[in-house]
């Protein structure tokens, strides 16, 4: 990345304010930016004042952004849709009036649908769940496909028609293959850290366990929104991106997505994956307890792929891959030190 770095040593306050890398750091401090800028500040102590002023200016400027709220965005989009679907202009006698009426109809029918929903048809909540060591495939009402990994839960309300978006909630891990709707109704996955993944139609993997949300995008495009310091941060993900959200901070990496999605084909792909990471996964997915004599051993890594079977089978393979002895007692596994 070095050749891309601007030479910040001669930067004025103004230069910093309009530098996108600086702006990103101020607005969404993630570890990579933090590391770079803390170092830079340390090696340029005379610039502390200057950086502070630029920071304040960026923070302030961000507050002067004026945006449409979501319902305005939907309304304008609806208006565009109704405009573009009309036949060529010459056949329109009174365009304004017709537009007004179609708009009025749209508003009225929207209101009716809403009332009907509110009074008569309280939506049913549907829940799909998998046990330890089990993966399952489900088809959603819009014929999107979800594969739930072990020990995971997906909930949604069965009322997507007439809603702003198709909302689902996820705990655990799931792979989504979302069908694009003709009316462009977005599909939204919400995780327990208030991260929202919004898509129109695409393939991606969501991991949401122990105060951490991780999204890997296989194809298409998704928008991620997540809470950053009382407001909302947004990023557009590209295929091959992994975004991790943890303790109010996000981090983006480029990854080989098959490492993260292979579980859906009952295969675990490893790429210098440490034993520690594998154990965390095994605990979450099989609900087993794993202990070890010496922490050092967890740093060993392996590459390649292995089939995902039941817990006993899995631990047996681990012992062979890492050449370690694993003792099994009931639901508990103990990793011995190599002799």
């Amino acid at each position, binding site marked *: 990345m070095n050749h891309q770095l601007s030479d910040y040593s001669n930067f004025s*306050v103004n230069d910093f304010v309009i530098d996108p890398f600086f702006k990103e750091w101020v607005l969404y401090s993630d570890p990579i930016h933090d590391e770079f800028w803390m170092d830079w500040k340390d090696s340029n102590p005379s610039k502390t004042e200057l950086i502070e002023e630029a920071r304040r200016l960026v923070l302030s400027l961000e507050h002067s952004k004026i945006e449409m709220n979501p319902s305005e965005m939907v309304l304008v989009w609806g208006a565009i849709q109704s405009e573009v679907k009309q036949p060529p202009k010459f056949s329109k006698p009174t365009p304004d009036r017709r537009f007004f009426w179609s708009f009025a109809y749209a508003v009225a029918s929207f209101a009716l649908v809403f009332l009907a929903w509110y009074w008569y048809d309280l939506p049913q909540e549907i829940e799909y769940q998998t046990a330890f060591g089990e993966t399952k495939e489900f088809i959603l009402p819009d014929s999107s496909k979800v594969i739930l990994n072990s020990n995971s839960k997906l909930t949604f309300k069965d009322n997507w028609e007439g809603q702003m978006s198709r909302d689902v909630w996820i705990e655990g891990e799931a792979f989504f293959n979302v069908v694009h709707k003709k009316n462009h109704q977005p599909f939204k996955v919400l995780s327990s850290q208030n991260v929202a993944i919004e898509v129109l139609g695409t393939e991606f993997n969501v991991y949401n366990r122990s105060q951490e949300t991780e999204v890997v995008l296989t194809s298409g495009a998704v928008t991620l929104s997540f809470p950053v310091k009382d407001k909302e941060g947004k990023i557009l993900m590209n295929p091959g991106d992994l975004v991790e959200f943890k303790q109010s901070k996000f981090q983006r990496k480029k990854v080989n997505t098959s490492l993260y999605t292979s579980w859906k084909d009952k295969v675990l792909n490893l790429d210098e994956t440490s034993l520690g990471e594998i154990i965390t996964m095994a605990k979450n997915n099989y609900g087993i307890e794993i202990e070890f004599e010496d922490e050092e051993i967890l740093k060993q890594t392996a590459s390649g792929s292995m089939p995902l079977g039941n817990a006993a089978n899995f631990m047996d393979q681990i012992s062979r891959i890492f050449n370690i002895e694993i003792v099994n007692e009931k639901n508990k596994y103990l990793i011995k030190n190599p002799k």
Partner: protein
Amino acid sequence: MSSPVNLFISRSPKTDRKTQSDDRALWQSVRKGNDLAFSNLYQRFSNLLFNYGMHFCYNRELVKDCVQELFTNIWNRREGLSEVDSVKYYLFKSFRNLLIQHITRDRKLYSDMNEDCQLSECESSVEEELISQDYLKDNKSKVTTALTKISKRQREIIVLKYFNDLSYAEISSIMSITPASAHNLLSKALQCLRVVLKALLFGSYLNYLA
């Protein structure tokens, strides 16, 4: 599971080039009549344009109309659209033309009843809108007032450069000035903004003392 390898650092120049080529791919698909690409284009740019429009002339309905017209035109004329180097630049330039058209049309319409009120309305109501947005809780919000204290063109260039990171060449073409004056205008704008901000902060400090 996250492996520590392949750490991808999203440095701005890189992301920029990347999003630019992304935008171009999106544009290509729109030209071919892909409606998903069209809705993506709308999602990606409608609010950036809206923000620009609101700082250009504060009139929510007018700006929304322009957003609507711009995207409607794009879709209706998609087959005749040319390939563009920077989608963002193209959109901002066309959007600005639309804004000016709408403002002049509105002004003609109302000029009999209300002479030349349009612009002054623009100026004051941004301030009102921003103040009403509950942002006046702390000193940060001073900039919202500060932005209305600098000239219209200064504000415009800040929106184009700071919020949208357009190049000086693109900005100069959008605002019909030379790249050199774009440089000057921006640095003046930021300078003014800093002075105004300091004055506002100092003012609140005096208030605090009093």
